[in-house]
């Protein structure tokens, strides 16, 4: 029952005319499970989100919340087995990609939807030059000659502000610094001018100053190209400047979705509140850091009711019985909490 509610009402910002249409990329009621020897882990339990051209959606959640698996399902790079999609749709320009042939999906990769991975050292092939790995796309996908492809690849390296792009073309990934490597990764993902870019924790492996540079670069390129961007992160600090909307994930569900400003101002889910409170603040120096007590649930045995209830400071008996559906709470925002109204309406 609640599933239906989720899929119907979980599109904040929709014009209310029923089925959303003409959206660039939308995920609807996606369910993914990992079948392992120890049992079935329900990794994604009805995720619905969408992204439009020129918009950045940040997907926030701790490790194991299912944010990367959702992205992998969109890209069609989910490891099967153990991962299986059991329900839902992933629509690109309104067409369900999960029903497409392998060849159709392949054509969307890179050109329609591209992806940046977290660890650029392992995500780039160690035995080919960075330039080769970019130029390869122009050669294979666009049928360009070697010389033309190389020229375009150097241009791409230049666009992501790699100094001496021409000289760097023939370097191997291990000869790049972490930040430069992530820039190269960005250049590679943007080579075929994708409409949607999924950035899976693009700055996690980098140090803080470089993180900011990479985020700025990503934001800039996204605006220039009017791409839709899905930014996956567990770092609240990273999303504030770049994202338009935020979807917070917990135990394979979206628990809150809101405009970035609204979410920071007044979170409508206790989990989001807990996350915001756990950011260290200058005016609380010397005090103990605030954390969310407890651990994320075991995905093979998600507690009944609201999956967050064992850790929730606001938990009531109803939370242990009923799964709260993701419902609209105010304009353009939704929350999956039985007490969302109270959270939003407090002073």
């Amino acid at each position, binding site marked *: 029952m609640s599933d239906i509610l989720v899929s119907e009402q979980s599109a904040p910002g929709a014009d209310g005319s029923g089925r959303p249409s003409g959206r660039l990329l939308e995920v609807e009621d996606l369910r993914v499970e990992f079948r392992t020897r120890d049992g079935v882990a329900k990794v994604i339990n009805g995720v619905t989100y969408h992204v439009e051209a020129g918009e950045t959606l940040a997907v926030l959640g701790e490790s194991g919340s299912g944010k990367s698996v959702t992205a992998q399902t969109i890209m069609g790079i989910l490891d099967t087995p153990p991962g299986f999609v059991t329900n839902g749709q992933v629509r690109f320009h309104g067409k369900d990609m999960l029903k497409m042939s392998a060849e159709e999906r392949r054509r969307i990769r890179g050109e329609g939807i591209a992806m940046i*991975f977290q660890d650029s050292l392992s*995500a780039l*092939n*160690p*035995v080919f030059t960075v330039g080769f790995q970019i130029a390869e*796309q122009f050669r*294979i*996908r666009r049928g360009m000659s070697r010389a033309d492809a190389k020229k375009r690849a150097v241009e791409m390296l230049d666009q992501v502000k790699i100094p001496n792009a021409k000289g760097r073309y023939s370097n191997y990934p*291990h000869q790049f610094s972490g930040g430069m490597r992530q820039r190269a990764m960005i250049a*590679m993902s943007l080579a075929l001018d994708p409409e949607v870019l999924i950035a899976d924790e693009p700055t996690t492996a980098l140090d803080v100053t470089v993180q900011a540079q990479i985020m700025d670069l990503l934001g800039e390129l996204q605006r220039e190209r009017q791409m839709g961007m899905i930014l996956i992160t567990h770092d609240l600090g990273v999303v504030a400047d770049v994202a338009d909307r935020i979807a917070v994930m917990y135990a394979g569900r979206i628990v809150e979705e809101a405009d970035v400003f609204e979410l920071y101002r007044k979170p409508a889910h206790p989990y989001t509140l807990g996350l915001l409170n756990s950011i260290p603040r200058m005016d609380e120096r010397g005090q103990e850091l605030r954390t969310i007590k407890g651990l994320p649930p075991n995905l093979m045995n998600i507690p009944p009711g609201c999956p967050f209830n064992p850790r929730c400071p606001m938990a009531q008996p109803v939370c242990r019985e009923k799964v709260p559906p993701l419902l609209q709470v105010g304009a353009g925002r939704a929350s999956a909490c039985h007490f969302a109204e109270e959270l939003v309406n407090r002073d």
Partner: protein
Amino acid sequence: MGRYLLRRLLQLVPVFIGTTFLIYWLVWSVPGDPFAGKCGERRCPQQYVDFMTDKYQLDQSIFVQYATYMKNLFQGDFGQTFGGRSINDIIMTSYPNTLKLAVVALLIEAVIGLGAGVLTGLRRNGFLDNLVLVSTLFLLALPIFVIAFVLQWLLGVKWGIVTPTVSSEMRITELLVPGFVLGSASMAYIARVARTSIAENRRADYVRTAIAKGLPMRRVVGVHLLRNSLIPVVTLLGTDLGALMGGAIVTEGIFGINGIGRQVYRAIVTKESATVVSIVVVLVLVYLLMNLLVDLLYAALDPRIRYE
């Protein structure tokens, strides 16, 4: 690169001198009279013994002997057998046969081993996978002479598909079975190493990136996956190259191939010390050069390995 090569070549010098001296010393120190039994039923005349002692400088110290030997070697003279035949001749006639057999064996083990490894690595636990696992286990467990005799008897004698032994013309078709026998153990190793390597790398992040780039599957596997998985296989093939070129005493013997392995065996049995030394010296040289080649190839395959 150039400096690395030069350094490696210079490193070969002490290794070459060390190993060849050791060989020279060991072979000539074998107890017993090297000229016993060289003159038929009777004792050799003193004249002959004196002549040979002088010819091979047996009254000199081992160092002087070795120095003279080396001096001749660098002039391209491998010396003479006790019977007076040029050892250069022996090497020149038998070594090409060994090379031919080695190349055939190497090709067979590379093509079959690698092919089986890649196919099973991509699709594990299937019928082919189990077939390869069991058959490689057989090849690894059976001694080479058993494989050789069984194939020779089955294919050559019973079914008559091939000639049981190799003629002096050394036709490629005749070499297929001996080549398979010679390469069988390594082929099994290569299949298994390639299988593991492919299976390991198949889930690697860079393979996922290649898929995410929208490359066709055959390019993902044939270029991105294969190139990385080949690194351990090439190392194996490389070390094998040296071993194969060192001749195959058993295989050459069974299939009647006049190769270097057979020559060195014959020389050892007949106590032809000079011949043994010379052939082994050639093999050492080949082995060292092959190792150098493999190191260079290895670095070419994996750019993370740098020539400083």
